[in-house]
């Protein structure tokens, strides 16, 4: 009950932030230089053509009128029409979110597991060789340009060794995968399509590895730091001096207090991962949300920019909310 009230209160706090995001993106895309109409019409279009196109997208109306129309659309779930493709933004979005989520969720999940195992291992060997190596590796991961790492993996995994497919798709078209959610791996499981599953998996391997490597570094450092803090705490010392069994010590006195901060970290990393996917999708020609939003941004495709910015903000805020709820459940000290 308290939890529900907490969630409700937090959702209410989210509303002004999202409203600010909506207003700000709306105004900024229009005020700052760049004209979507010119980019779709090309250099040979006349003024009259431009005016006609403007009228078609409602861009000739005064700004407040456009804003009201936009808000009205938002309330009914209509994100407008893409200026570039002429297709409804909502349906384009639905196609693009699945592939990106597939990438991000797999990578973050993988990174979490690796970070917890290595981080705790490293903390228990603090200031010894193993610990130092793990920390240096984490720092290298932290300093890694993900788009370059992607290229290097392609160079090695595809060009040199030929173990992985070319970076030009998400699944072999010959497998006849029926798209359901947009996430190919999930679709393959849902339609029990074995060949599609292996194909999707091999296409996913390099991008997921790339993203996981960049994402694991900050997680690993934080897990190590909080595990170390617990190990050096008086509470852990007390448990040790009272001769508790190693298993009890590890589970009850090290992991639990060390991992209460993990949800918040995971949320933060989720954000970094979304930023990185834009670059990684670009490298692997992954037809996901990031590519779509980036193109919208480059061509000043107003409805696309507005929709993607809103979606990212909403997703980010929700992920943090979930993290806070999980944290509250894990940590008895948190009052909600």
């Amino acid at each position, binding site marked *: 009950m308290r939890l529900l009230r907490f969630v409700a209160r937090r959702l209410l706090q989210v509303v002004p*932030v999202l409203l600010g995001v909506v207003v700000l993106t709306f105004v900024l895309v229009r005020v700052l230089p760049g004209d979507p109409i010119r980019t779709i019409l090309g250099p040979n279009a006349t003024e009259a053509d431009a005016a006609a196109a403007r009228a078609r997208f409602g861009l000739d109306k005064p700004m407040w009128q456009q804003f009201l129309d936009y808000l009205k659309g938002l309330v009914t779930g209509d994100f407008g029409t893409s200026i570039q493709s002429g297709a409804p933004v909502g349906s384009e979005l639905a196609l693009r979110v699945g592939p990106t989520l597939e990438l991000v969720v797999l990578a973050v999940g993988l990174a979490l597991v690796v970070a917890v195992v290595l981080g705790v291992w490293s903390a228990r060997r603090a200031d010894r060789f193993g610990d130092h190596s793990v920390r240096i590796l984490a720092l*290298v991961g932290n300093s890694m340009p993900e788009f370059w*790492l992607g290229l290097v993996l392609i160079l090695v995994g595809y060009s040199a060794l030929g173990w992985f497919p070319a970076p030009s798709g998400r699944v072999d078209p010959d497998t006849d995968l029926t798209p359901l959610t947009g996430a190919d791996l999930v679709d393959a499981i849902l339609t029990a399509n074995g060949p599609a599953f292996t194909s999707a998996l091999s296409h996913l391997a390099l991008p997921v590895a790339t993203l996981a490597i960049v994402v694991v570094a900050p997680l690993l450092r934080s897990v190590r730091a909080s595990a170390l803090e617990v190990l050096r705490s008086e509470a852990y010392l007390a448990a040790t001096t009272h001769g508790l069994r190693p298993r009890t010590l590890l589970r009850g006195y090290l992991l639990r207090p060390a991992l209460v901060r993990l949800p918040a970290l995971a949320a933060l990393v989720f954000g970094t991962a979304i930023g990185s996917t834009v670059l990684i999708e670009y490298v692997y020609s992954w037809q996901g949300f990031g590519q779509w939003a980036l193109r919208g941004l480059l061509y000043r495709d107003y409805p696309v920019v507005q929709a993607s910015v809103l979606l990212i903000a909403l997703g980010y805020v929700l992920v943090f909310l979930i993290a806070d709820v999980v944290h509250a459940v894990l940590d008895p000290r948190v009052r909600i």
Partner: protein
Amino acid sequence: MANGRTRAVSRRAGGGFSRALIVTGAAILAVVALAALAAPLISGWGPEEIDANATLAGPGGAHPLGTDTNGMDIWSRLLYAARLDLGVAVAAVALAVVAGTALGLLAGYLGGWVDDVLMRIVDIFQAFPTFILALAVAALLGNGTVNLVITIAAVNAPAYARLVRAEVRSIRELPFVDASITSGASTLGVLWRHVLPNSLTPVRVIAPLNCGWAMLTLAGLSFLGLGVTVPGAEWGAMISLGSPDVVAGRWWTSVPPGLALLVCVLGFSLLGEGLQERADRRRTS
């Protein structure tokens, strides 16, 4: 109560690793900075000079690291790019620190509606992953070195504002601030002489790490065509230009600039990590 001097001793003890981190990081950065300054001396070609006879030439001969599709010398461009990458990153972080600290100080010390308004703005900024925000701002502001500095600074400033604000709010409650107020010091005096210097402690640790991140952002933006564009010499732009060659197995157009970027960012990371560890040691001992 341990006396101050022995504490200083125990701080140094076991801090060998953190010192190694700091020294290595600083050394890497010094080498990169020197190479950037000495670029004209150690490279045979100008950064945008085209050798029409050698496009996509492999490493060796007149071009130690080969040339790109335009026939520009990779090694020269690598060196000149260091100037831009380092310069933009450091300038952007400096700007972010100054702006963020000023805002955080105001919000934290004054509280009330100033705090509310500033923090809501920070909230909006922080409702986005920073790289996405950088993308959006860069796309809106357009290319140009100054614009890139502003972009990266703008994206980072909110985090500093929040950090300094939190720090200020806890420092405000410490006895030495009360001591200063009861000594008759003015609000500005308290802020300047006591609150500001003490609230900058975490900023000092985070700024180097942030410089590394700023470089990655700059390169990432350029990679997507939103930052420095060819023929400008910048590591991300160079990687971008070389990326189509990767599928064909031509590594020298994209691997060296990425490696340079990695090493340089690693320098900042090592420095930041070392400083962080030293600060933690100081806090716990």
